[in-house]
């Protein structure tokens, strides 16, 4: 019974495409009623407030977007964003057509298919023979789909949270066979639960093969456990579960807790691109993890009990609240802010929508000293540039740009995911590459990017008009030196076309555009 039930419960991700059904996870996230914890937003909001909101809760404002959001009202805008349902994104059909490999099931990926798209072997007759998709092709489409969705989706906050969770529950699709399940992990687990409850998300991650396969491959952290390789792998996952996914490195757990958690999780392992449970491999004895007792004979149920226990643990609430505070408010959030977020979290059972409402309503978010004081990650910088310029990221080579910038989606090797804080992204090497990409992009020379050089600068206009456009409409608020720099250098441009290009390049290179 056990194995069959287990497969029914989890494994059929491989048959059902992105519509992962798992009894272990909850039903589709229900749109939550506005929680009573919400405080009123600051009154008398202006364009700078809207710009700040968009800087933090989207991948970057598009032209005129701050004004539109202000006109709509920040609270209505937020509620509209929170109503987003990953399963009903109008973009999905477009992306599915353009990047089918990103949405295929493992079974579909393993089947020979007509050689789909492989720039290196175009025109080579042997390559046209049907064959299964290769890792590089799948990764290429996954990354292009991610960047395209981040650039074009109206549901920006959903995609921002998906990015946050993909880093928190990091999986590297560029290694081993993870690529076979990566698309489903992204859509069926991460995006599906991104605005749901943390508990459901945690369980869905645990029960999806992607995380197990990824940690199995990640060497350097793998040490054989007492029971051999399989138990070693569970200890690996148990450690990351505690240290990274839930209670955190200061969460108050010991090595003993890691081992006990591994015993609770025993019996589960990745099998045929699913996660299956086998009673004979499960440790039947009693266990204690961080004070929580699991009496003998708990069987298959124990894993989910452990996960839900950890999800609700105060250390987990604090750990995640801090991460959210860092992501949205400040690299050095006050303890009081973390407390307030943790409060909202605890009172709503980890309902992510409610927590986000609480953060948006928090005065610390709106404080002047927390504006423009974060630094964009590479992906935020790149996608932000695409959104601001009205660029259509095409398929080929978007990932090459992302690789140069050091943040190709879905390719982070270490389980901690891509970092969030300024000190990781503000360094000479990173800035030099951004400057290069800025000038290349402005000229329309970036492969795989459909963009008319110099857009969206007006095609006609004086130097001063172009300076104002960059300062007021593209960047929002600039220092006197940036404004003067624009004035001086745009005036030297030999013609209007060159001036427009230089204006865009300078905007993307400016200190203002690195800040968030």
């Amino acid at each position, binding site marked *: 019974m056990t194995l069959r039930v287990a497969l029914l419960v989890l494994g059929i991700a491989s048959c059902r495409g992105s519509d992962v059904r798992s009894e272990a996870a909850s039903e589709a996230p229900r749109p939550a009623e506005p929680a009573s914890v919400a405080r009123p937003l600051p009154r008398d909001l202006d364009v700078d407030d809207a710009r700040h909101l968009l800087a933090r809760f989207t991948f970057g404002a598009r032209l005129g977007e701050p004004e539109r959001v202000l006109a709509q009202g920040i609270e209505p805008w937020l509620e509209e964003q929170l109503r987003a349902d990953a399963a009903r994104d109008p973009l999905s059909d477009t992306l599915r057509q353009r990047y089918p490999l990103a949405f295929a099931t493992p079974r579909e990926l393993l089947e020979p298919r007509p050689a789909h798209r492989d720039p290196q072997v175009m025109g080579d007759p042997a390559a046209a023979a049907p064959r299964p998709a290769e890792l590089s092709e799948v990764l290429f489409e996954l990354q292009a789909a991610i960047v395209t969705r981040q650039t074009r989706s109206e549901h920006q906050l959903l995609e921002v949270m998906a990015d946050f969770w993909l880093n928190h529950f990091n999986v590297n699709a560029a*290694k081993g066979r993870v690529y076979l399940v990566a698309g489903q992990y992204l859509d069926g687990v991460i995006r599906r639960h991104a605005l749901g409850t943390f508990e459901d998300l945690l369980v869905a991650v645990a029960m999806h093969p992607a995380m197990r396969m990824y940690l199995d491959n*990640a*060497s*350097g*952290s793998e040490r054989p456990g007492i029971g051999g390789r399989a138990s070693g792998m569970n200890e690996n996952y148990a450690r990351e579960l505690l240290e990274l996914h839930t209670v955190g490195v200061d969460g108050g757990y010991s090595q003993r807790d890691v081992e006990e958690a591994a015993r609770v999780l025993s019996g589960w392992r990745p099998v045929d691109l699913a996660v299956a449970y086998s009673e004979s491999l499960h440790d039947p004895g009693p266990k204690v993890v961080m004070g929580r007792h699991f009496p003998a004979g708990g069987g298959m149920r124990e894993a989910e009990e452990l996960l839900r226990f950890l999800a609700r643990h105060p250390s987990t609430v604090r750990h995640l609240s801090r991460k959210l505070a860092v992501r949205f408010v400040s690299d050095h959030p006050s303890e009081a802010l973390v407390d307030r977020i943790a409060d909202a979290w605890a009172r709503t059972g980890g309902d992510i929508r409610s927590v986000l409402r609480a953060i948006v309503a928090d005065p610390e978010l709106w404080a002047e000293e927390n504006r423009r*004081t974060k*630094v964009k990650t590479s992906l935020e910088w790149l996608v932000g540039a695409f959104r601001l310029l009205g660029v259509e990221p095409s398929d080929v080579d978007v990932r090459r740009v992302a690789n*140069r910038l050091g943040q190709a989606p879905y390719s982070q*090797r*270490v*389980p*901690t995911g891509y*970092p969030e804080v*300024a*000190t990781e992204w*503000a*360094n*000479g*090497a990173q*800035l*030099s*590459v951004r*400057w*290069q990409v800025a*000038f290349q992009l402005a000229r329309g020379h970036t492969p795989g990017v459909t963009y008319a050089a110099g857009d969206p600068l007006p095609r006609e206009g004086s130097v001063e008009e172009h300076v104002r456009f960059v300062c007021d409409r593209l960047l929002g608020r600039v220092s006197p*030196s*940036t404004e*003067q*720099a624009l004035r*001086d*250098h745009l005036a030297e441009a030999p013609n209007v076309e060159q001036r427009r290009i*230089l204006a865009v*390049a*300078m905007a993307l*290179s*400016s*200190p203002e555009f*690195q*800040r968030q």
Partner: protein
Amino acid sequence: MSALSRRRLLRLGIGAALGARVGPWRADARAQDADAPVLVAIMLRGALDGLSVLVPHRDPAYARARPTLAIPPPAVLQGALPLTDELGMHPALRPLLPAYREGRLALVPGFGAPVDTRSHFEAQRLMELGQLHADRHGDGFLSRALSGVGARDGSSRSRRATHASAHLPVAVAAGSHLPLLLRGEAPVLALGQVIGAGDPTGRERASRVGVLSSLYPHGGDLVLDVGRASLDMLRALEPAFALPLRADAYPPGPLGRSLAEVARVIRARLGVPVFYAEVDGWDTHANQGASTGLLAYHLDRLAASLAAFEADLGETAPRVVVVCFTEFGRTVRENGSAGTDHGHGSVAMVLGARVAGGRVLGSFPSLAAGDLYEARDLPVTVDYRDVFGELLVRHLGLALPPGLFPGFAPAPERFPGLVRAR
């Protein structure tokens, strides 16, 4: 003025007269850096087959293990180049033979890291981090080693009178990516990230640097500070970009190009102590070839590039040491595809006038099955951390920070003896 006559003038110490003509650098800064040692680290990514570089041609186990891949003994046509009684060098490395004979090249068998992984990416990552286990982000060990470098002693700091040298990077990488080895706090630059790098006239770079400098006119917050520091580093290197790039003197390929770029910066005598380049193509799982073939082709390119590099350096050559290293070696036995698979110990090559060369360091490992690592690979007998420890301490004269290699303290008694005593 032609390059040749300028070189003669420099040798006569009349560099100062030329200063005004070649760039905004100052003669006094250059003069005291004339003796400053330089380390060039070249990472051979992909696991170099050390057993084809250093050939135990007398050992019958060698030919038995490699029926098609074994390099023949020196007496045979295209055989190994004789180094010692027992050991030869791959014939494709012939351009380095003079350096060996003249005592400038040392080979280090058994080179590697005591890690189990046979994944290229993991092994490279661990080696660059300087750790044996690492499942979190980290800094490169070379960046850690250089973090304290501003001056090697108090006296040279006081002589760093020029604005330019105060902003120099402590390491320069050829190519467009900074390797993990150099990631960290130390100010470093990748030449491929130099704005307008492709423009030989320098006009585009000057124009871009001008635009960016006005956007980052001073420090302030982290973004402004970093932007400013980046531009300062570029300006400090500008004298190097004014020198001719002698890429034609090198064999074609990315390594030649990289070394030409590195040589130019060294020739500018700005005082940058560390350089980095990399080359791949060493992962010879199939059709590796023996005296000729795939591996031989890459070895030939490597040797010819290094020889051209030594020549290009001119009179700066004596203070430069080059270390070629790889993440692990390859299996002793050839596989079913006339190639070799991932192994363990490999061979490092260390080249320079200050190297105690003309020899093979340590003893060559036995190929007896019982002596092999996991019954398949050459063992690691020389820890890469001792090799780099010696080069950093005895060649560059650095004091090693305590956390340089977590859990490992490079000890002078374990240094392989690569650097000649002064």
